[in-house]
């Protein structure tokens, strides 16, 4: 589904991603962990070209992202992304947040888009909030709307960039619950997170990144119980 080969990313002099090679299969839930500054968010943002790629290739569903012939907007519509800061559109209602890309990108008519959006809101438990503006929602509710908005595009892959890091502790659970449900439905997911419990419970595979490299990857049980690399051990001893 996703194939990353020799991915490099530099910001000026700073080399953030040095040589990333990752394969992600369909329906797989991959959790990316690592200390801050390890490049895990940048890695995720390269997967839909929100961040440009300096070197190497990223292939999604058989299409190479940097290929000039690939319509990057079409490809992005297939790759949903959920941000730490939610990034809901404040001038649109909850319903309009979800229908806007369905109407402008997928060319659905308004009525069908609204029907589908209401179904998605019901799925994340917020059907009663359709008419309100994002500012009146709690952080957890905002993030669930953001997930519904991404799902509206019927993506093949969902990327989560620290989806619970900006939330008050008591709201983390409701967002993780929605993500867990998505995983169970067979969504291919790449999740950058500090929620080790989620990684262990839901992840099929955990990738540990540090200083721009993938240091270690394994199934969650093996990686958490028996980390092979020194840096992984040091990191896990601090967060577990």
């Amino acid at each position, binding site marked *: 589904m996703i194939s990353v080969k020799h991915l490099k990313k530099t910001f000026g002099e700073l080399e953030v991603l040095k040589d990333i090679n990752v394969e992600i299969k369909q329906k797989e839930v991959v959790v990316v962990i690592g200390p801050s500054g390890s490049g895990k968010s940048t890695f995720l943002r390269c997967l839909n070209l929100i961040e440009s790629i300096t070197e190497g290739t990223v292939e999604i569903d058989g299409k190479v992202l940097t290929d000039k012939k690939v319509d990057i907007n079409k490809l992005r519509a*297939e790759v949903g992304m959920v941000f730490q800061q939610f990034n809901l559109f404040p001038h649109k209602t909850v319903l309009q947040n979800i229908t806007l890309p369905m109407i402008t*990108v997928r060319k659905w008519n308004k009525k069908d888009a609204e029907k589908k959006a209401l179904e998605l809101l019901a799925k994340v438990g917020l059907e009663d909030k359709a008419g309100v503006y994002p500012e009146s929602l709690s952080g957890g509710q905002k993030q669930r709307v953001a997930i519904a908005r991404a799902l509206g595009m019927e993506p093949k892959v969902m990327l989560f960039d620290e989806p619970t890091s900006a939330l008050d502790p008591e709201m983390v659970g409701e967002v993780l619950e929605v993500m867990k449900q998505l995983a169970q439905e067979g969504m291919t997911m790449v999740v950058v997170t500090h929620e080790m419990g989620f990684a262990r419970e839901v992840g099929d595979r955990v990738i540990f990144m540090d200083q721009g490299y993938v240091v270690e990857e394994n199934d969650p049980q093996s990686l958490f119980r028996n980390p092979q690399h020194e840096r992984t051990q040091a990191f896990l001893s601090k967060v577990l």
Partner: protein
Amino acid sequence: MNFRFEIIMEYLPFLLEGMLLTLLMSVVGVLVGCILGFFIALGKMSKQAIIRIPFVWYINFLRGTPLLVQLFLFHYAVLPTVLGDTTAVTSVIVTLSLNSSAYVAEIFRAGLQSIDKGQAEAAHSLGMRKFQVMRYVLLPQAFKRSIPPLGNEFIVLLKDSSLGAMIAAPELLYWGRAAAGQYYVFWEPYLAVAVGYLILTLSLTYLLNYLERRFDVK
């Protein structure tokens, strides 16, 4: 001091006509300024220097030289050369439009750049094209934030339109000067003119406050 109200009364129809022209020239100036200013803002934000630099200098010139100098330049030199002929009102409207376009461009640019970059990222990540991101996500938010400074610009422009009197455009100040010249009195006509401008700017202020509430500007 003997305040001669009859002079104001005699000139009242002209002063009112002048007010109307002042308002008309300013409204046209600010509307054209907004349309031009929008494209100039986009031009100035271009990543390519070759596109950006002409817009930068357009703004530099119009903000860096006095409006009165621009008015003389357009009325006596540019417009007669380009159009073959011009009237005072045409010259004022053209000069006000171009001058305000430079200021409006900076207002729009500031408004667009004040929008959190996560907004554009989210819109792009949903597959929206550049134009759609601009049209549906960035512009509506930037426009809302631009309303208060645009209101300011409108009020400044309305007062600056009084420079039109220098090339005999029959606006408000022009008729005040005419009365002063005829009777050789100054209190009466210039106070009347000042009150006329005050009525216009205060009405505008109330209208703008209403619009800010209407659009829920924070």
